[in-house]
């Protein structure tokens, strides 16, 4: 029996530390690492199912080729054939168009391991290419917090156990960050009160002392309403002048523009409730707000986050132990980036969100063609000089997750070669020409950080690659090797290397400093917590231009946004599409990565209020259709209590929608206003 | 709801017919006028049925090869007791079979089916008390086996079964099909009085079964699970077929037969027997199909 250290690379708050057990080279069990203070030896069912996933009969073990797209007739080919096909296509495109811009990469969070950025490195090594940048997830909120605080930082998750009042705002940790639940329960056991704000009654809301249903997209106004009560009740932090910037302007805006009547009417929260909750929030110290990602997937999402930040600041909860406004962090992602681009030491990552466009090297700005990941198909299709002719999809399933499927169909029809690298076939691989089998995190070296807690660790291989699968890094080396063989000098990316050495090189001096370790090898002993304080902004010195918390942000006004957090109404439903479709995460899935617990449900289940179901003459189990101008989906009806009559919910399904207001600055592209999708409903 | 338990349906119904036949033979033998041919036929047919029943029961097990272990828990398991009694019944039947062989050896001449003799004369001096005793012991053991079979289903978890219903229904099947099959087997070997008696038993069992079913059904509604069982019955076409072929038809036909001058409507008797057999098989299938246990009703 041998034990290995692994890290769950899923796009999830928890980023758990795993101890895997192997016997004679076979992975036999995975358990949580008890030495990791957030994982505490426990794993969620998704990770617990990993052994089955690694050896799943459905897993693709060999490079495969599909002669006719969507035919499903895949034939096994050798790696050499696959690499030759890819390299020849790249060289052929370069020759035809005189540039490598027809080559596009669309990669995101399928595996958040740092070594997966080898794909970006490969593409940079090839030359100027077309890239998907931005994030389909959290852009607007990241930017809002960056404007307010200067950077994107949260308290240690364990800090929440010290709170006396916890506001869970648009977040459902019971399903999406389950390791936070014992911390919240701990706070409750110590007398903390928990209030949950959400559009629907979630499993987390059920465990809160109070659940407040907020009309979708109006959370920002609710925060401003609370701020109004704080003003009226004299519950403003008297020291605001010493550490914030622009609070007078903000207070003036609240006094003149916000009325509680209007706030109550729009948000659906009674005035008395707004008043009581605000007073409680103003009077209780420490009080913590945790703002979820769903909050900002609206056209006004960035403003919503800024308004909530401002509320926390106004009440004096910033920098408070057990207080603050928590969203997420990216401070433990300061890896050297050496893998991504041997030429540009500080390069942008299109996958991991960490670098801002400001950080893009001039070189890359001039050469690469950057497309918003949330409008990728449309933008790629519209590229004419030269057109996009080859697409590599890695760590993503855009044909299941993206909005505009019609656009994708159009794009696919103009592509000469589509390469998908993945573990399993997906909606996206149905359209692919080549499938490259990749390794799981039990089969390669990697390096992982969380965007919620502060632990960083090395993931070591526990077993040899299953079948002929290869790591993204190995594939990148192999493609480069093949390119250089066919045409020497055609790719600057290394043609071979050592995974472990490569990962150690990612731990540059800044990272070693953050982690408080002397040399990169020290991290091989086990995950390390970054040496950041447990409480964010504990000395109330911020990273903004003014070094203060900025109610008034000149960087916002420079970007043609309101300098103050303001309320902008969300999109409204229309007669054609009267119902807002929400698509929150389910506890057993992450995006389109499904982890079957029990029998798989082949149908999409539409959750809606019993009253709404009655209005459409629908009963439990009925088949129905939701549709809007961009698509149609057949669903099975499941009425549940605790949802408004203008909202329907499908847990994680493809939807189409407009963009968020912020995200352009920090992440280079605006986010995806997933929750501003409206549909119509009819019985079948 | 349960499943189509073919092995159990065959085991219980065939086993009950076998023991029913022996029970009827015992009854006919009580005043020493059991026809020896009928005795032989009865023993052979019931033995065959018993063997098929026991074999069928093995198919219910995941591991028939280890069926012998089923005797291990006589202390509290009715299934263990059932197996014990059925095995003892089979042993007793072997004794009956031996008796029937002895009859054959001593009755070598003039063994025409038309020759009507009483047991006493045909036995050639062999004491009929042996025969009667054998039939009696076999019947008794068999009835204990059937009662044990029924007790298996008396489970607190299944309200529809957790009462005297299973025992009574199983015994009624034994009486009804035992009598009818003996009538068919007996044919002309039976005296008119015997025929009449058997017909009356059949009629009585049918009437009792009908009344009992009505009372039982009305009792079921007391619990949610019982009501589900009842509902299953009433909404199943199988149940209505069963009601037609094993209650209504026999009531009608048995009265017709009983009213006929010499009770000699052979074809009609065969028809009733087949109908009732079908009805009982359907009834037993429904018994398993409709079983609704108390269970976790939270959402999955």
């Amino acid at each position: 029996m041998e034990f290995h250290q692994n890290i769950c690379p899923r796009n999830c708050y928890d980023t758990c530390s795993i101890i895997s057990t192997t016997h004679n080279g076979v992975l036999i069990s995975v358990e949580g690492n008890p030495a990791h203070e957030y994982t505490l030896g426990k794993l969620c069912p998704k990770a617990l199912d990993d052994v089955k996933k690694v050896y799943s009969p459905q897993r693709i073990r060999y490079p495969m080729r599909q002669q006719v797209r969507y035919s499903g007739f895949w034939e096994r080919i050798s790696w050499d054939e696959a690499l030759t096909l890819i390299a020849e296509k790249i060289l052929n495109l370069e020759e035809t168009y005189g540039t490598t811009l027809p080559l596009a990469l669309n990669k995101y969070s399928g595996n958040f391991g740092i070594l997966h950025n080898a794909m970006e490195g490969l593409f940079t090594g090839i030359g100027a290419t077309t890239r998907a940048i931005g994030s389909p997830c959290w852009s607007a909120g990241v930017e809002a917090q960056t404007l307010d605080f200067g950077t994107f930082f949260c308290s240690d998750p364990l800090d929440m156990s010290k709170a006396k009042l916890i506001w869970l705002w648009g977040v459902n940790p019971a399903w999406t960050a389950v390791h936070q639940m014992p911390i919240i329960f701990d706070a409750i056991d110590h007398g903390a009160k928990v209030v949950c704000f959400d559009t629907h009654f979630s499993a987390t809301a059920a465990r809160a002392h109070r659940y407040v249903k907020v009309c979708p997209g109006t959370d920002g106004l609710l925060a401003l309403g609370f701020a109004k009560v704080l003003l009226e009740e004299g519950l403003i932090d008297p020291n605001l002048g010493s550490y914030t910037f622009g609070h007078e302007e903000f207070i003036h805006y609240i006094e003149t523009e916000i009325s509680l009547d209007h706030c109550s009417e729009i948000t659906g929260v009674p005035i008395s409730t707004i008043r009581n909750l605000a007073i409680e929030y103003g009077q209780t110290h420490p009080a913590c707000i945790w703002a979820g990602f769903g909050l900002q997937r609206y056209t006004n999402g960035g403003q919503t986050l800024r308004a909530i930040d401002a509320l926390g600041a106004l009440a004096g909860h910033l920098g408070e132990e057990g207080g603050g406004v928590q969203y997420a962090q990216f401070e433990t992602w300061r890896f050297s980036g050496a893998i991504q681009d041997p030429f540009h030491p500080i390069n942008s990552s299109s996958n991991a969100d960490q670098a801002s466009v400001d950080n893009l090297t001039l070189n890359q700005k001039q050469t690469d063609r950057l497309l918003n990941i949330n409008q990728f198909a449309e933008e790629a299709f519209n590229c004419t000089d030269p057109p996009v002719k080859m697409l590599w999809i890695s760590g993503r399933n855009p044909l299941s997750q993206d909005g505009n499927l019609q656009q994708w169909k159009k794009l696919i029809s103009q592509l000469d070669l589509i390469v998908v690298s993945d573990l399993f076939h997906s909606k996206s691989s149905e359209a692919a020409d080549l499938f490259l089998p990749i390794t799981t995190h039990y089969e390669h070296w990697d390096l992982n950080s969380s965007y919620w807690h502060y632990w960083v660790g090395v993931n070591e291989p526990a077993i040899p690659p299953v079948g002929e699968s290869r790591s993204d890094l190995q594939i990148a080396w192999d493609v480069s090797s093949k390119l250089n063989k066919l045409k020497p000098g055609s790719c600057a990316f290394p043609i071979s290397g050592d995974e472990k050495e490569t990962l150690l090189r990612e731990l540059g001096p800044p990272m070693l400093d953050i982690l408080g370790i002397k040399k990169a090898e020290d991290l091989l002993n086990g995950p390390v917590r970054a040496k950041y304080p447990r409480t964010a902004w504990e000395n109330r010195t911020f990273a903004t231009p003014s070094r203060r918390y900025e109610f008034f942000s000149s960087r916002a006004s420079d970007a043609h946004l309101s300098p103050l957090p303001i309320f902008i109404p969300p999109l409204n439903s229309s007669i054609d599409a009267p119902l807002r479709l929400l698509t929150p995460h389910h506890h057993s899935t992450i995006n389109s990565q499904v982890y079957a617990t029990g029998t798989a449900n082949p149908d999409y289940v539409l959750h809606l209020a019993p009253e709404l179901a009655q209005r459409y003459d629908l009963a439990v189990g009925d088949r129905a259709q939701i549709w809007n101008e961009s698509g149609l989906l057949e669903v099975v009806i499941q009425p549940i209590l605790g949802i408004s009559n203008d909202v329907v919910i499908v847990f994680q399904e493809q939807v189409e929608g407009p963009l968020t207001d912020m995200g352009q600055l920090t992440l280079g592209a605006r986010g995806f206003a997933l929750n501003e999708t409206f549909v119509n409903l009819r019985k079948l | 709801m349960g499943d189509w338990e073919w092995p159990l349906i065959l085991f219980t119904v065939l086993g009950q017919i076998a023991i029913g036949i022996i029970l009827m033979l015992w009854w006919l033998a009580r005043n020493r006028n059991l026809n020896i041919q009928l005795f032989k036929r009865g023993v052979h047919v019931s033995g065959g049925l018993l063997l098929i029943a026991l074999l069928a029961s093995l198919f219910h097990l995941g591991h028939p090869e280890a069926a012998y272990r089923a005797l291990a828990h006589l202390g509290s398991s009715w299934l263990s007791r059932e197996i014990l009694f059925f095995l003892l019944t089979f042993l007793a039947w072997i004794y009956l079979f031996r008796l029937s062989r002895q009859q054959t050896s001593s009755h070598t001449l003039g063994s025409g089916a038309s020759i009507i003799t009483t047991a006493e004369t045909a036995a050639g001096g062999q004491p009929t008390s042996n025969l009667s005793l054998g039939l009696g012991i076999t019947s008794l053991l068999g009835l204990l086996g059937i009662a044990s079979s029924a007790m298996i289903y008396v489970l607190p978890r299944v309200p529809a079964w957790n009462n005297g219903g299973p025992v009574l229904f199983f015994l009624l099947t034994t009486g009804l099909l035992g009598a009818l099959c003996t009538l068919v087997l007996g044919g002309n070997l039976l005296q008119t009085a015997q025929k009449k008696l058997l017909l009356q038993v059949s009629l009585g069992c049918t009437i009792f079964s009908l009344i009992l079913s009505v009372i039982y059904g009305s009792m079921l509604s007391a619990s949610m699970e019982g009501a589900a069982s009842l509902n299953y019955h009433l909404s199943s076409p199988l149940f209505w077929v069963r009601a037609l072929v094993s209650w209504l038809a026999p009531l009608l036909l048995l009265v017709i037969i009983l009213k006929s001058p010499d009770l000699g409507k052979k074809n009609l008797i065969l028809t009733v027997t087949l109908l009732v057999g079908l009805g009982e098989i359907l009834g037993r299938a429904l018994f398993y199909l409709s079983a609704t246990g108390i269970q976790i009703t939270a959402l999955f």
Partner: protein
Amino acid sequence: MSKQLGFLHNSEKCVGCRGCEIACKNEYQIEATPQWRKVFQLHEDDFSLPTRMFFSMACNHCAHPECLRVCPVKAYTKREDGIVIHDPNRCIGCRLCTMACPYDRPQINPAKKKVEKCNLCYQRIDQGEKPACVTACIPGALELVEINDSLDQKTGILKTLPGLPSPKITSPSIRFIGPKQGKQIRRD
């Protein structure tokens, strides 16, 4: 019997993640069909407000186990600590226990044609460890406890929950901490 081990399940803490189910499957490499442990969601209409509450249930190691009573092959035994153990080596797959258990916890394994159920990780307990499901429970909703009067006298300890069979049938060795319903503010 000197004592009775059992489970204490806190519905307020259980978030329905099903980690216990998978941990159990991983520990014993159980195939897909038999589910020794299963997470159920409580019916919402049993409460005045929506609940989104769950409970997790495996074999309840009942004080009066029906499975043990009806089993013809003595595959079931009850240990001194109250754990009801099913010995698959004795099982002949008659399925009578699956008919007798109100919780449907002994289940047939179609591949092995034998019944299987939770044995409360007795081999772990004998080594002073906790059962796999209890160890895996992230929010700490599932505990191994000794079922006795002093536990039953504590406030908030329930013998059953809505949607469960009456505990009178088998006296299951499981106790619950039920949902405490918060206040819900909404305006429809």
